[in-house]
């Protein structure tokens, strides 16, 4: 009779083990098998092993989710920074009524110059700008793709019905452009941004007069 009770007891313990394991398999690692230390037997070792396994798995899953979260945060940060850089890379400044300046700084790649063209054209169309000044003082090097893209930008701006001038071409950039054989004849180029602004005033029929002290 005692033996039958013992077997029933074992069966219930095994059933409990199965239950706990299935709970853990579903992702809940907080469960543990109750162990009676005083009545230690062969099954107790297995039960302890299962408990250890579940708590270890719980820890690891916790850690990996934490890592995944960190990674996601970092990715979001990178995305934000990229957006910030892209926004910074194409500032369009309105310096006078109906005059825009695009100060280009750093290296121009195809992607950037495409974004730039799109941003500029959209801005011109929405704000009904008359003159756009592309200032490339901050551009150290120009390759043929970029030079071509600049030409295309100027042509597109003119198609919209606005005038476009390129200012601040550095000597080395001028050399490169000529060596590359890019034809700049259809494009107005001026030395400095100030000259560009004066040119823009000319297009807008604005005359600046210095006020004299009497």
């Amino acid at each position: 009779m005692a033996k039958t009770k013992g077997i029933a007891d074992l069966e219930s313990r095994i059933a409990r083990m199965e239950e706990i394991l299935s709970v853990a398999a579903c992702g809940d690692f907080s469960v543990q098998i109750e162990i009676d230390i005083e009545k230690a037997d062969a099954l107790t070792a297995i039960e302890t092993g299962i408990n250890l396994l579940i708590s270890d798995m719980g820890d690891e899953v916790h850690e990996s989710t934490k890592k995944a979260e960190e990674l996601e945060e970092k990715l979001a940060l990178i995305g934000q920074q990229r957006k910030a850089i892209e926004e910074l890379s194409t500032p369009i400044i309105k310096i006078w009524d109906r005059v825009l300046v695009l100060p280009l700084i750093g290296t121009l790649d195809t992607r950037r110059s495409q974004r730039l063209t799109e941003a500029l054209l959209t801005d011109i169309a929405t704000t009904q700008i008359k003159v756009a000044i592309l200032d490339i003082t901050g551009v150290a090097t120009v390759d043929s793709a970029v030079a071509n893209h600049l030409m295309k930008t100027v042509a597109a701006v003119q198609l919209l019905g606005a005038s476009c001038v390129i200012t601040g071409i550095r000597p080395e950039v001028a050399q490169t452009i000529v060596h590359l054989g890019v034809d700049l004849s259809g494009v107005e180029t001026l030395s400095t941004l100030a000259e560009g602004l004066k040119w823009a005033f000319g297009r807008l029929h604005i005359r600046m007069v210095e006020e004299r002290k009497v």
Partner: protein
Amino acid sequence: MLENTPIPILKLKDFLLVSIQIDLHDRMAQQLQQDILERISQTQAKGVLIDISALEMVDSFMGRTLADTARMASTLDAEIVIVGMQPAVAITLVELGLPLGGVRTAINLDEGYELLQESLKEKASEKQGIEEESEEEEADDSGSD
């Protein structure tokens, strides 16, 4: 004879006003070209404003037709100004290598109208200059006799 285009050509003082509100297929574009030229010769218009602000897309044929129309009109002593081109259209035309050589463009109707008036004034002053010169020549001729 092709059917008439559903695009109205309006007369506004010395100028004609054409507003393209629908996508034109090739035959319609050609018909429009013919209509514009006929109206120019009928009305003796000095300029044509073509508003394409509603066009989202211009293909190479359309671009070439516009450029051709502009050149044809200039032989009829009328200048064509294309107004309100969309940025996407401008990019497409430039990428196609069709920068509409010789066609004047303006950002909106106001600008286009001003542009036409300015060029009309220029033409008028040029004409006056020529007339004055010829008068002077005549005066010189009579003086030498």
